[in-house]
């Protein structure tokens, strides 16, 4: 823990967990989508569900999705800015099992049609935990460069990836492994001290048995924001009825 975890962050109020953390959830989800979101269906759980309007949690997550940082004074106006930029956004309350009391589930569609579902919690002091991506456990706090490798559960993948990082002088700070069943679908989540260059990421993508690689560097990544027009091919935007049956109110 740094002393700037005690004095700081500089943030827009009123709550480090319900506002600053919520901005980070939106921002990291945007980085994971690697696209400008045009559609967002956001489900709030627990304390988030109970108090999201009063704490500005809805505006905070939206601000993050638009690429704002927790100290951006435009956070209170994010719903209006989202409308101007063509981001359709819906809020609902959801029920989750074994989730932290401040949890949100974001279903996102990007301008180029990319999709992602992120489940994340705000764990206090503005810090967050990304719990799941597309339903798979990941559990990282997005404070360091993070590499997520999806592969078939066979011997050697961990050795391959860690050797490659070692050869490139990239130090691993933490590592987690998940799988759905023996020999099934496996995920490794690695946090590193150094950033990982794109050529190494594509090398990992090309290993046999690797299904998908996601890499973010929360310290440096920026998805340039643009005034996105709603794509003419509306098929990438799910209708409200398809994706969000529980949503009664649309903030737009």
């Amino acid at each position: 823990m740094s002393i700037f975890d005690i004095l700081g962050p500089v943030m827009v109020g009123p709550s480090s967990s319900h506002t600053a953390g919520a901005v980070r959830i939106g921002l990291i989800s945007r980085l994971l989508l690697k696209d400008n979101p045009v559609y967002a269906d956001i489900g709030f759980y627990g304390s988030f569900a109970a108090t999201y309007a009063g704490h500005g949690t809805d505006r905070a997550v939206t601000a993050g999705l638009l690429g704002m940082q927790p100290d951006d004074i435009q956070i209170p106006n994010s719903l209006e800015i989202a409308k101007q930029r063509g981001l359709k956004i819906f809020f609902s309350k959801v029920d989750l099992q074994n989730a932290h009391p401040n949890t949100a589930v974001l279903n996102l569609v990007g301008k180029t049609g990319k999709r992602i579902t992120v489940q994340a919690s705000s764990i206090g002091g503005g810090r967050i935990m990304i719990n799941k991506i597309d339903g798979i456990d990941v559990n990282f706090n997005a404070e360091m460069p993070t590499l997520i490798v999806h592969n078939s559960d066979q011997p050697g993948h961990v050795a391959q990836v860690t050797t490659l990082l070692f050869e490139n002088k990239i130090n691993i700070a933490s590592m987690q492994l998940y799988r759905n069943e023996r020999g099934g679908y496996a995920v490794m989540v690695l946090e590193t001290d150094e950033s990982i260059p794109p050529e190494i990421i594509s090398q990992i993508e090309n290993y046999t048995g690797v299904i998908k690689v996601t890499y973010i560097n929360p310290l440096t990544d920026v998805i340039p924001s643009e005034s996105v027009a709603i794509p003419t091919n509306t098929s990438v935007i799910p209708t409200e009825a398809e994706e969000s049956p529980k949503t009664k109110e649309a903030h737009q």
Partner: protein
Amino acid sequence: MSFTSLKEITTKCNEEKKSFYEIVLELDSKQSNFTHEKEIKKMNSMWTAMKNAADSYDPKLFSSSKLTGGDGGKFEEYIKKNNSICGSFIGQVISCALQMAESNACMKRIVASPTAGSCGVLPAVLIPLYRNTIFSEEKIIEGLFVAAGIGQVIANRSSISGAEGGCQAEIGAASSMAAGTLVYLHNGTPEQICAASGFALQNLLGLVCDPVAGLVEIPCVKRNVIGAVNACSCADMALASITPKIPADEVIDAMKSVGNKIDSSLKETGRGGMASTPTAKNIYSKLSKIN
């Protein structure tokens, strides 16, 4: 590693003949791999953000719940008349605490110190000292390192989260940090810094987190005032060489054990205490309709 005991910091101060500020700066710089200059620059940016937040208070602004706003302006007018009970300096401290906490509720930019809900306490004691040019900005920034060091020990030994430890962990921690900082600024010894921190925390032990409708507004805004005023009186007690019988580290441990015993309805769930009064329930149901 960060500090886990205030005793450890004072021992280091005495052994190495360095100030509380220097010991905290050196350890954090070792840990973050930042130079001392970079650390001081970063702390300066926190101080600048605090000053900007204090200067940009708008008495006409209300929170989205409409429960908060305007009180900091009223208080400022009141103390200008020079017949307040608390007198000029404490009057300014109260005014500043109200204003910062109200700005936070109104979604303005603040510095979490240590949390957003308690963001008014530390600036409330520092801004009046700065505005009356009692201390240089360099010295105040040194004081912020002292505050952060104390906060770090509290976070390591106990908690600085209302959901975990109740309000004592937020306003209590902020008050403890502010008390120690005031003693540092007034050239107190490391032992006196710890004494003030311990006094401030022990006085707020047991304070529950019971926000009306779950919002960081009632009673949070006014609790920032008690945190700030308590810091002033505890710093004065320490500077008067009143020595605590219970060491500050043990007070922090007591805060943790009290926090564990506080019922979850009184830990940021908006279900107990002030939040469970009939009027609060009414407010909650009215706001839920808007929500």
